[in-house]
């Protein structure tokens, strides 16, 4: 399927039973859904499950013509992500029947994650100023320790944010310099 085909056109083709259009929607939306899942579910396996669930619901809705504005496919998928994660958190489980119906054709495309050189990163972190290194370690160790950073440093949350931004910017520059 040509990437020039718009979301709206894909949605219209799916209503008329175009299987290739369905595959293109999965190809296009799968990686975006997965990122959303990684952010909100903090697990690659859970993110993969979310991709399947959201694509299934999306295709169901598209086939049934329930997407009223074909231009709004991406917002529809995002909304479906949000509702699905909410449902998960409420403990709702209803995807098994849908998975049986649609099977493994909805396995998401796995976009390769960029590789990071851990040793170089360690050298770059060690090269930070003391306050920046403390903020980085406290931020990334744990959510609770991130909140404690300001108290350790004796500064406000806003200042912690400034220091963190500066440290991350320096780390990115350092990683690009040495790579």
């Amino acid at each position, binding site marked *: 399927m040509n990437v020039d085909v718009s*979301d709206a056109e894909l949605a219209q083709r799916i209503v008329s039973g175009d299987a290739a259009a369905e595959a293109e929607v999965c190809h*296009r939306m799968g990686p975006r859904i997965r990122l959303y899942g990684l952010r909100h579910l903090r697990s690659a396996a859970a993110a993969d499950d979310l991709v399947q669930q959201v694509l299934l619901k999306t295709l169901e809705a598209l086939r049934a013509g329930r997407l009223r504005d074909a231009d709004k496919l*991406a*917002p529809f998928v995002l909304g479906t992500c949000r509702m699905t994660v909410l449902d998960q958190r409420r403990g709702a489980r209803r995807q098994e029947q849908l998975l049986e119906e649609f099977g493994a054709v909805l396995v998401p495309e796995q976009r390769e994650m*960029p590789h990071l050189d851990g040793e170089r990163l360690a050298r770059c972190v060690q090269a930070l100023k003391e306050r920046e290194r403390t*903020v980085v370690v406290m931020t990334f160790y744990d959510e*609770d320790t991130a909140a404690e950073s300001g108290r350790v440093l*004796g500064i406000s949350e806003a200042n912690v944010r400034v220091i963190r931004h500066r440290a991350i*910017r320096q780390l990115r520059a350092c990683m690009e310099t040495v790579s």
Partner: protein
Amino acid sequence: MTRQNGGAPLECATPLEPAVLMEYWLALLPAVEEAAVEEHLFGCDDCGDRLRETIELSEGLRSLARSGSLRVVVGDGLVRHAVDAGLRVREYAFAPGQTVACTVSADDELLVARLAADLSGAARVDLSFCDPLGVERQRMTDIPVGSEAGSVVLQESLTFAKGSPSTTMIARLLAIDPKGDERLLGEYTFQHTRTIPGPPEWEW
């Protein structure tokens, strides 16, 4: 390359700032900003690629922060979390002027020294590391300390400690005034005994 709104490939005209992507990933954005970021990501694969880079950097930093391999001043909360998580934490507490016999074993996962000192009124505090003759070998400049803190919690590098021969190291907390003059806040002597096989000694 992106497919803005599913159309032809486009460069992102309004790329999300790296700092915003990092705060999004860390769940530090207000709800309204988070929603706006997600709407952008669902129409922009360019920024999706940038988010993947951000995730990789974030995971690398998380792994590093939890590795115990960095020499860094930390907060009590980090030590508590490590203990709660079941990590093998070795902690030594020093009063000013105290000498403590210490070591590290192969299965230790976090090594912490708690250096007690009266830090009130110190605008800047440095932590100096000296050899047994008192000659400075390394300095951590302007370390973070809360104004009400009665101690500095130093996470020592396990990589360094596990490779260290039996030796004496002197740490000094120093208050630095605006003119650059130093005032000793506390001196702490580590008498390290090696328990892990390795070279008998090293050059500083």
